[in-house]
């Protein structure tokens, strides 16, 4: 399992299009992906889970991947979250 704390840089947070991008990238890996914001955990492959957690720019979240390609998954997803559009 790989865990990484990330401060989200996306200028509008994980909203609409970036959320969709995140899900697409997440689903391309076989590992289980989770996002933890405060105490709440959501499935990183769920568009509804992600959008309903309303992650905004500047929020600190923990990205967790568990599976065969966990390191690659965290690297790729970190990129999505740090992008400034």
């Amino acid at each position, binding site marked *: 399992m790989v865990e990484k704390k990330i401060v989200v840089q996306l200028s*509008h947070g994980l*909203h*609409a*299009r970036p959320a*969709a991008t995140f*899900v697409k990238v997440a*689903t391309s890996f076989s590992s289980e992906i989770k996002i933890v914001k405060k105490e709440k955990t*959501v*499935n990183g*492959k*769920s*568009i*509804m*889970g992600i*959008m*309903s957690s*309303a992650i905004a720019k500047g929020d600190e979240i923990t990205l967790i991947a568990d599976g065969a390609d966990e390191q690659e998954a965290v690297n790729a997803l970190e990129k999505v979250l740090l992008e400034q*559009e």
Partner: protein
Amino acid sequence: MEMSQKIIGVKASAGIAIGKAFLLAAPDFQIKMVAIEDTVSEIKRFEVALENAKLDLQGIVTRVEQEMGDDHADIFKAHLLVLEDPELVDTVKEKIEQEKVNAESAVSDVAQVFIGLFEQMDDEYMRERAADIRDVTKRIVSHLLGIAFAGPGELTEEVIVVAEDLTPSDTAQLDRRFVKGFVTDIGGRTSHSAIMARSLEIPAVVGTRVITDVVKPAATIILDGYEGIVIIDPSPEELADYERKQAEYAGRKAGLAKLVHEKTLTTDQHHVELAANIGSPGDLAGVLANGAEGVGLFRTEFLYMGREDFPTEDEQFLAYKQVLEQMGEKPVVIRTLDIGGDKQLSYLSMPEELNPFLGFRAIRLCLDNQELFRTQLRALLRASMYGNLKIMFPMIATLEEFRQAKQILEEEKKGLLEKGIAVSDRYEAGIMIEIPAAAMMADQLSREVDFFSIGTNDLIQYTMAADRMNERVAYLYQPYHPAVLRLIHNVIKAAHANGKWVGMCGEMAGDSIAIPILLGFGLDEFSMSAGSILPARQQISRLSLEEVSQHTEAILSMSTSEQVEAFVKKVLNQK
């Protein structure tokens, strides 16, 4: 023989349509919870329905991309992601397995949890996503039940669309070849669906409250957009009656069509300009077909709405250029961004206000958020090379605001020229008059602006202090009230004294009672929905400027709106 049924609504767009009803929202499926023993095959049944729903959506995405462009397909791509969402899919499967219930009730229960979650969110954009989940759920359930699901993008024959309401995304998906008219439960004359119907020139009745409850799919209905009446299952007599009216209407339209290429001249050869209000470059076909002599108001908000981020300078430039090029030498008044109040952008968070119509909106917001404003001004300046551009600033209350906006415009112009980017030297910069303070100070403002355009919808509500959307004070929304007319007269007189022209771009400019009054006041340009242009041209061609202007003093000294209206009907609109 069944009796026909008459429903009264709000007349939103003129015309008569006769056709089969197409219920846009699929009827609420009756979902019963049934205990299941063979959960394995129930899960299989759910998976098959899911697959079929995906196939539907992929088909729609392809078709919409081909016919309407990639942007319009985004909403369906989002639906596809929801269909593939593991939180939805796995939770449904678990529920079937553990609770031993049928797939229909499992899907609907799980979806309800998500819908509830999204509906409670503060952000309007997120609340709208609840509708997406509802849509997707219906699609899955319809496959489970074997009931055909009809979405707005899937029409194959001519119909009258019946819906609770039409959202911008619904109308974007409507196949215009097949929609002869539409009827909705909610909405008023200025709701999105009504404005859309007028710009598409299809008859519409909105705000019927009950239409989706009383009309059955494929029932024959008559839609009378002149009177705001809908007749369901008409009798043969009613059908014949309306077919005759429809023919009359077509005849009248043909008569008006002869005026398309005519200039708008009074009997004493005075020319006024009849222009159209538009919301996007797509409206231009209707504008030209109706013989508009210009665009009197291009509302640029639509470029900013229904998307996830600000439009870029290039995107805006292309849209403005397209409109200017297509209009050729004809003037095009483009209004800078007017958001705030009831128009919000999902990607620009604005604090909630107690009085949004008196709050931080339009030019007030643009002068504060200059990056946003400057981007739009650069796009406009670059586009100025391609036609006859007039830039208009909305919601100006004071001279300082205009000066500041003008200075920013000059700075951007200078910046572009320094970079070697061409800017026309004949564009104009004017303001919209919609705040009584600006109308009172028109003499001062007219020394510095190039033109005025009177936005009556807001000017009336600010003058009368009556929210036009509030039914309890709607009686105060009086376009012919002498208070409003005096302000308008003051604006025109002041502008002409300084050699500036005055237009009007509110609903009032196309109103047959207001037209003779405004003509008499000396209004130079009347801008309205494209469909109102030819009737207005016909009306003006029967009026004499000399005659109508003789009554100006009398009208301005009247005491009530009713008195003005009665006078116009009796004296000015006799011919």
